[in-house]
């Protein structure tokens, strides 16, 4: 997956926040607050070759089982795709 919008990810008072910048500011107003796991997914989704690979990265970071993590990744990336913040890089549109 690749990010198609430009956001700055910052931790403000213990919360992870996405702030739009660049041309993204024409389409997005305000800020997006992310959970800890969502922030991890956002930061690492371009470094992972698949949802499975990202899930492996996450299980070593958080003490959560892989099945739960995969469900989190699926749900969050679906939202990101819907919001046109990221795009699939796989031709079969799985990742």
């Amino acid at each position, binding site marked *: 997956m690749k990010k198609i919008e*430009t956001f700055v990810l910052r931790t403000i008072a213990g919360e992870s926040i996405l702030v739009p910048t*660049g*041309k993204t500011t024409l389409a997005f107003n305000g800020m997006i607050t992310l959970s800890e796991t969502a922030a991890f997914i956002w930061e690492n989704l371009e470094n992972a070759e698949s949802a499975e690979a990202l899930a492996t990265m996450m299980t070593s970071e958080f003490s959560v089982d892989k099945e739960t993590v995969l469900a989190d990744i699926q749900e969050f990336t679906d939202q990101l795709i819907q919001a046109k913040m990221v795009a699939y890089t796989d031709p079969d549109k799985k990742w």
Partner: protein
Amino acid sequence: MYESHYNIAGISIAITANSNLADDDAYRLYRTDGITSDQIYRITMEPSTDRPKPSCTCLFQNELNWVFDGPVPQHFFRVPHGKGPCAWDLLDDTNEKKIFYLPEAEPYFSTALGVFNASGFERILYQFNRYLYHCSYVDYEGRAILFSAPSGGGKTTQGLLWEKYANATLINGDRAVLEASEAGILCHGLPIAGSSGVFINRTLPLAAIFTVKKAPENTVRRLKGKEAFLAVYSQLTINLWNEAFVQDALDFSMLVAERIPIYELSCTISEEAVNTVRACLS
């Protein structure tokens, strides 16, 4: 060519133009005889008929300004009520800029107001780590008290109440310049004051920020963490299309939120509102 000088927020701004710039009441207070600071920004105004074509990607636009993407972003400016862009410049990260303008716009750009309107004042401030904050700025016993709110939210009204009931002075009814210095957060006056018409040239240490909310009763609530951060960040003038500017404004907002007490003031238009804040400050 003539050179006109201003000192705003401790920055010496030298403007080279075809004429000695005309000042209105606001800019007259900030005019100087020459360079007055080691922090210098230079603007050169140059008439031209060779208006460039904008690149295809627009990063920002409002009523008077357009910014287009490129190796160095292009900025176009339209005079109020003008038909189209009449001035243009490149937004690089140096402490000088050359603004080109169509010859028919000469009368507008022979005034300080016109030059500063076209210059992107928040960008000049940013070059020197200063930020434009949307608030009314009150001098109370030699300390700066700021009331922030969106336009029409009652910030100037609170400032005027302080003049009436607390022997304070309204320094600016619409904006202040904030700077993080070794001595703490400083608050500078500036000649831009919205419709308030109050633009005193004075720098004071910042004591507190109050975000104003109209309410039937007067109460104060201390903001912490994310709420305090948002009270600062949301009222800064930021070039959102510029990632470095956004990053630095985020850092600056966190710094102010850590160092300065920030409150939500729910208030009426009354002496009691002033007394509620005074009690909080003491």
